[in-house]
């Protein structure tokens, strides 16, 4: 199951990769000793594993919010050099969005907050204004532009932070638990919006506890538990009970439902598993209806 991140040949080029990453927090055991990861351009990469398994650490290493002890980060094929300038360039190209929106919202006005990144890039007022408008549009929150941050709902604040990251025009968006705390409809609508960004060319790296979500949404997944347990297509990795047990995850429903449907001859043996319970129900209703 584990594929060598550097070994794929016909695969799309890597938007972002880490080679031999080692990291430890002061006075603790190392989180990673020699981690290799590869994020293909234009893909959605799910990062899964138990709490304390290193998900957030990996996201921070990839986005320049932590510096690895040893190892290298490559963005768009270029190695990130040491030094403040290269680090800032990495941070711009790989935007990290934290789980708690209040960690990244510092302004009481939505449009002012979103303009922070573009202003840091040294853009002129007009160009910055355009960026802000475009980012708010992409997150479908243009109507919130003049709202005070503190009167927004949790889900709205999450979108504002995303708009602030997007306004940097990153090539990769790294999202720490973007769906945590959202209700099912909120999850769905955020996934739709993020799919729109991906279609427009942004690569997405997403950590999550939701195996079912990763199964239906991610192209590839990274399974972490203080080191890389596996990486590969979501539908292979997340259907492997042994790997899931090692990562202390429960299996997804979709493979079991798919197998049951195939056993009942309601799904073609080579067709993919149903992504959602609705899809499974539709197949069953087709049968009982026809």
């Amino acid at each position, binding site marked *: 199951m584990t594929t060598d991140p550097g070994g794929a040949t016909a695969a799309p080029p890597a938007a972002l990769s880490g080679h031999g990453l080692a990291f430890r927090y002061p006075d603790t055991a190392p989180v990673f000793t020699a981690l290799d990861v590869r994020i293909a351009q234009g893909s959605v990469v799910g990062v899964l594993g138990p709490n304390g398994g290193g998900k957030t650490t990996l996201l921070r290493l990839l*986005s*320049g*919010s932590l510096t690895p002890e040893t190892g290298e980060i490559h963005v768009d094929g270029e190695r990130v050099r040491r030094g403040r300038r290269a680090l*800032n360039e990495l*941070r*711009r190209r790989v*935007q*990290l969005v*934290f789980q*708690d929106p*209040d*960690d*990244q*919202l*510092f*302004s*009481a*006005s939505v*449009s*002012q*907050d979103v*303009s*922070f*990144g*573009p*202003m*840091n*890039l040294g853009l002129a*007022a007009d160009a*910055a*204004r355009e960026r*802000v408008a475009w980012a708010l549009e992409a997150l479908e929150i243009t109507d919130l532009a003049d*709202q*005070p*941050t*503190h*009167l927004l709902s949790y889900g709205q604040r999450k979108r504002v932070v995303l708009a*602030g*990251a997007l306004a*940097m025009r990153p090539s990769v968006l790294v999202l720490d638990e973007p769906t945590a705390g959202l209700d099912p409809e909120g999850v769905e609508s955020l996934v739709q919006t993020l799919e729109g960004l991906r279609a427009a060319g942004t690569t997405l790296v997403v950590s999550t506890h939701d195996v079912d979500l990763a199964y239906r949404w991610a192209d590839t997944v990274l399974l972490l538990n203080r080191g890389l347990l596996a990486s590969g297509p979501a539908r292979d990795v997340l259907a492997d009970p042994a790997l899931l047990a090692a990562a202390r995850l429960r299996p997804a429903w979709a493979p079991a439902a798919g197998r049951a449907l195939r056993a009942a001859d309601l799904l073609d043996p080579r067709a993919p598993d149903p992504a959602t319970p609705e899809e499974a129900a539709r197949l069953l209703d087709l049968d009982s209806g026809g």
Partner: protein
Amino acid sequence: MLAIDAAAYTSPWRRVHPAAKGVFFGGLLVCALALPTWPAAPMVAVVALAAGFGPARVPPRAFARAAWVPLLFILTGSLALLVTVGGPQGAVALDPAGAARAAEVTGRAAAAVCCQLLFAFTTPLADLLPRLTRIGLPSALVEVIALIYRMLFVTLDSARRIQTAQAGRLGYAGRRAWIRSVGSLGAALFVRSFDRAQRMQRGLECRGYTGELTVLVEELPLRPSALAAAALPAVLVAAATASYFSLGAPL
């Protein structure tokens, strides 16, 4: 979360430039303070409240709740003006001129409070604070003030949730418990505030933070004619007060 703040963001006057609102309510406030209380204070109160409850549609119930705090201070403070201490009549005695003095102070302060509150009810701080650099405050200070404004809501939110949790475990059921609860609440808030600052530091670094919190502040049109119009009510109150005295009314 805070009634005055929340109302300001939905005020029909939100789009009016803060400077114009400042001149309007500030001018009336100066009238209330600098002109003779009778008749200037009632006139100021009537004009300010008419504007506030009329075109500015300030919610009256929220206004009344907010006005209660300063009014309580004004009324308590005026009590001291009713008496005279250590005079020939004894240690404490009613001052015959005290009622008039108390009434004058109460009238002046009540009118002034109306102006202050109505300015607050129509001017969101998110619109006002970034413009404080225009009156000469250093930008580093203005950034800190704006940051405090944002962070106080986050902290206030934590405070409310911690307090609710404490109340659920009967932390406010008696005086001793209350003191213990407020103390541990204060300590928890301190720890969380500094933790939040550190996480925000990391969060903003990802957005290119290097020490400046520069943002794009949208220009609001400010026409000189609008400023002049905003000053007009104060001028009229002053003129009316002057004519009241020139007609010899108080005699």
